[in-house]
């Protein structure tokens, strides 16, 4: 009966062998950074990754995740973050701060610090771009909408694609829509009520990441989104234009943070320094990405709805400390109201 022992041994070896496999450990020259799916992913993959490889010989691994999902993943990992650098919008940034997910940030480690306007770094992270959110439409299919309220009227509503509160652009847009119907920063019910009325007409209800694809494939011809997405779609030859709603476009800064407990602290700083460098910012400002630069040496692209970041003061900005506590309930509510 040696057979049993031997075969068992073979089985055990096979099982054990699996655990000796080369684990994908932190390689020497590597940094794992999150990025937003879609335009950011495209841009960082094409522009930033090769630059980082060339300059510091660091491989940039990009994890496409929305801000909320990054926070969720990091929280779930409990001290062993699945990535080294976050990219976040104001709302999730506060959640991350409260959750203690960020490494203390030392701005002096950034060689390009002097190129940033004052106040663009703090002890948790650095501003890397600004975003402008408004309405995108296909000029070949529908006339230009004037404001948020137009989205609920014909001809736009029957070509409208909507998405919920999982993202900053979705949340901000729905808040603005809500304000027009008596809602406020903390009350989005009017928007949901209005949307519900026209729901059968609405062309598409999608996950946030799916929206550019739905637009590109003609499943919808109007949607709320940011300027970078519009630029990327244009770059793909899609007929799309950006509209600043008459009640004002929404703007906010996007920030990057180093995850607490990362194994690649130095690489993370090198990555952040590159992101705010003139070369990277300049390349990201160009079509088809049209990012809003934070580096003082880089002018804004002519396609942008503003000429300089100072104009941001005239745009709509939201207080995310007030929004955050309500957001989970909003996400759920949107799901329920918009399901058939």
């Amino acid at each position, binding site marked *: 009966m040696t057979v049993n022992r031997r075969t068992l041994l073979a089985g055990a070896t096979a099982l054990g062998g699996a655990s000796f496999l080369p684990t994908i450990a932190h390689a020497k020259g590597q940094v794992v950074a999150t990025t937003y799916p879609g335009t950011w992913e495209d841009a960082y993959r094409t522009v930033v990754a090769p630059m980082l490889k060339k300059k510091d010989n660091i491989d940039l691994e*990009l994890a*496409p995740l929305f801000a909320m999902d990054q926070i969720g993943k990091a929280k779930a990992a409990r001290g062993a973050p699945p990535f080294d650098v976050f990219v976040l919008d104001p709302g999730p940034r506060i959640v991350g701060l409260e959750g203690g997910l960020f490494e203390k940030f030392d701005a002096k480690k950034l060689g390009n610090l002097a190129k940033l306007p004052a106040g663009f770094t703090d002890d948790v992270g650095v501003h890397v771009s600004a975003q402008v959110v408004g309405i995108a439409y296909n000029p070949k299919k529908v006339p230009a909408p004037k404001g948020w309220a137009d989205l609920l009227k014909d001809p736009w509503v029957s070509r409208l694609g909507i998405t919920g509160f999982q993202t900053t652009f979705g949340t901000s847009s729905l808040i603005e829509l809500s304000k027009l119907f008596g809602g406020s920063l903390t009350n989005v019910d009017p928007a949901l009520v209005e949307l519900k009325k026209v729901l059968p007409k609405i062309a598409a209800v999608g996950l946030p990441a799916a929206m550019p694809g739905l637009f590109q494939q003609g499943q919808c011809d109007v949607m709320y989104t940011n300027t970078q997405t519009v630029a990327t779609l244009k770059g793909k030859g899609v007929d799309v234009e950006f509209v600043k709603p008459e009640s004002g476009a929404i703007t906010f800064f996007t920030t990057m943070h180093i995850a607490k407990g990362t194994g690649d602290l130095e690489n993370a700083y090198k990555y952040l320094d590159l992101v705010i460098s003139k070369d990277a910012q300049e390349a990201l400002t160009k079509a088809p990405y049209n990012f809003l630069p934070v580096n003082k040496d880089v002018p804004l692209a002519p396609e942008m709805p503003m000429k300089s970041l100072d104009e941001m003061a005239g745009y709509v900005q939201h207080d995310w400390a007030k929004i955050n506590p309500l957001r989970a309930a909003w996400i759920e509510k949107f799901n329920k109201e918009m399901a058939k």
Partner: protein
Amino acid sequence: MGRRQSFLDLSYSLVIGGIAILAVLIIVSPVVIALMISFTEGRSLKFPPTGFSFGWYEQLFDPTKSRQIHRAAGNSLEVAALSTLIGVVLATLAALGLARNRARAARVADNFFMSPLVLPGITFGLAALVYFSTLGFRPSLNLMIAGHLIVTMPFILRTTTASLSQLDPALLDSSQSLGASWFYTLRRVTLPLIFPGIAAGAFLAFMASIDNVPVSLFLSNARTDTLPIRMWGMMESTLDVRVAAVSGVLIAAAFVLMLIMEWTVGLTRRMRD
């Protein structure tokens, strides 16, 4: 009466035949259409495709532009190969142990080993995520191999048990009555006879692992995502025609693999039985 009968039979042939043709169309045409689209020159999934080019395949095979896709494919292959290998060893042992055991406990165990096939994959995926992160593991390929092992092993166990049950017990008895040891019988008689069963099961398990979404969805991260997860991401966001090119490659690969398996172990016959 006779005319009525033949009319009825004619209607039978028309309806049944018609639906059968429709069924074949439904099964085949999406695959063919996806394949056609992958050769488009255009940037969208518009049908009929505009022009003919290998442009999207060139993009797909471009090592810098599609690096993450390549790595995801590599991860998929590694996870599938290792989980299948471990699955073959464990399942074959278990099948040898249980196939001809009539005890109630053996039936219970057999059902237990098969249960991942009925359990919703997403439930097991979530359970594995909760379990491994409670134990303090970070997402890695090893965890994924462990997860895939559970959900793909039943395929191997099933085909192996089936081939064992078709073995003529008299054959084994005669081998043993001729003085051959149990191990000798196993090596020289049993294993060669059930080998096609094991191979067919291994093939199915391998493909199931390559295709697995629910488990990978929960156990993967940026470093370890697999091809289906990556494709899902692409479908959900950019929806570029590279997805069609990946599909094209996978269609071709599945076709070739299946031909090989058909010739060597008679795969379809085994799946039918």
